């Protein structure tokens, strides 16, 4: 059996953290892109489009992220689509992230007073002009804090990729645990690393929220 010094443990965990960060970034980028598309679909005021978005949100908010990962990983390959753990993790985290972000952003757009739409209409602005010049600039300001806040959920969500065998922080934690039999130490360290990734984002989100509330 190989002996692991504390240094070895930490080094391995930190190395794995890179993959957690990378997966989080990929999921966040994928999620925001899909969420933007869904938000646009919802804003078209076309009932069919709005229905699609509603079902999408219901499906991905109403089922466990872990189950979505299983479906993407084992399910798709069963159906003949070969997919890596990395691909399945990104795919399912993108679904998960976008389903929540589209709802968060809807809330932000809905908080803008109806008068902003009416005034734009009375000045002769088209729907797209209103969106671009009036609604989005204001909605983005409102949405920044909760979006940053949600990125914490994305980072935590990546931990589930360990279950389908993607080697990131949590997976390396369980592997090290199997090798060293020091679960208390290892899972404390793993938790601390996650905390150090997430807490600054939580603080930043709170800070943004305060700043925004003051400026109103």
């Amino acid at each position, binding site marked *: 059996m190989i002996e692991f010094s504390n240094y070895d443990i930490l080094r391995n965990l930190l190395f794995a953290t890179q993959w957690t960060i990378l997966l989080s970034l990929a999921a966040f980028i994928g999620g925001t892109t899909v969420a933007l598309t869904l938000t646009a679909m919802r804003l078209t005021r076309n009932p069919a489009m709005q229905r699609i978005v509603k079902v999408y949100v219901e499906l991905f908010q109403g089922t466990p992220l872990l189950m979505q990962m299983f479906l993407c990983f*084992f399910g798709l390959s069963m159906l003949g689509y070969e997919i890596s753990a990395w691909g399945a993790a990104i795919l399912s985290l993108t679904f998960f992230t976008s389903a929540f972000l589209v709802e968060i952003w809807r809330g932000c757009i809905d908080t803008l007073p109806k008068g902003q739409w009416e005034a734009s209409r009375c000045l002769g602005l088209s729907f797209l002009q209103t969106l671009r010049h009036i609604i989005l600039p204001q909605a983005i300001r409102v949405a920044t804090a909760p979006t940053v806040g949600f990125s914490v959920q994305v980072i935590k969500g990546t931990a589930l990729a360990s279950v389908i065998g993607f080697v990131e922080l949590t997976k390396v934690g369980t592997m090290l645990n199997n090798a060293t039999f020091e679960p208390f130490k290892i899972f404390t360290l793993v938790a601390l690393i996650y905390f150090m990734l997430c807490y600054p984002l939580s603080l930043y989100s709170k800070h943004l929220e305060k700043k925004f509330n003051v400026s109103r």
Partner: protein
Amino acid sequence: MLYFSDLLQYSDVFLSALKTTVELTVLTTILGVVLGTVCATVRQYGNRAGQRVVSVYVELIRNTPFIVQLFFIFFGLPAIGMMLSPWEASMIALTINLGAYSTEIIRAGLASISKGQIEAAKVLGLNFRQTLTRVIFIPAFEKIYPALTSQCIIVMLGSAVISQISVQDLTYAANLVQSRNFRAFESYLVTALLYLGLSILLRFAFNALGKRLFAYRTSN
């Protein structure tokens, strides 16, 4: 091709798994909200030390993944002498997790109650406990009820992770069945739909409960 009929013979496996998930959800929802209520009260009205302790608890839980919390409790705690069964570890982990989130939510509700309400209660001679239970809690909970119940549903869905320490919940059943009949897609799809049904059902139940709890609004 999809073969859902291959799943039929496992219906009792799914049923008993569903029972486990539901039992754990009901139990941890109650315990978690109680824990959250206590912590939120301390956080809002308690002394400095109490507020600090609650803050640290909330931030630690909210900024680490549930699966790591679960592993820490199930694998880590026995190393310092606390043996727990998978079921016990799951229940504790889920309660602690929901407790932290509901602390934040409930505290926002408490903060929304105007000082005037509390002063009015004081002037009428109510003590602190009476003020809390009779004057503050009901409107505070009414305000945050939608957020709180959504969080309960999120925690229910998150409970899928406890299959990883071999609690025989829905996800565990899905893994078991697909390992026997090699129908991964069907098995996971059916399980995902069961979870979806459960979350829709929970939302209905919470709405119905909310109508009863806050009936004073409509009864006049």
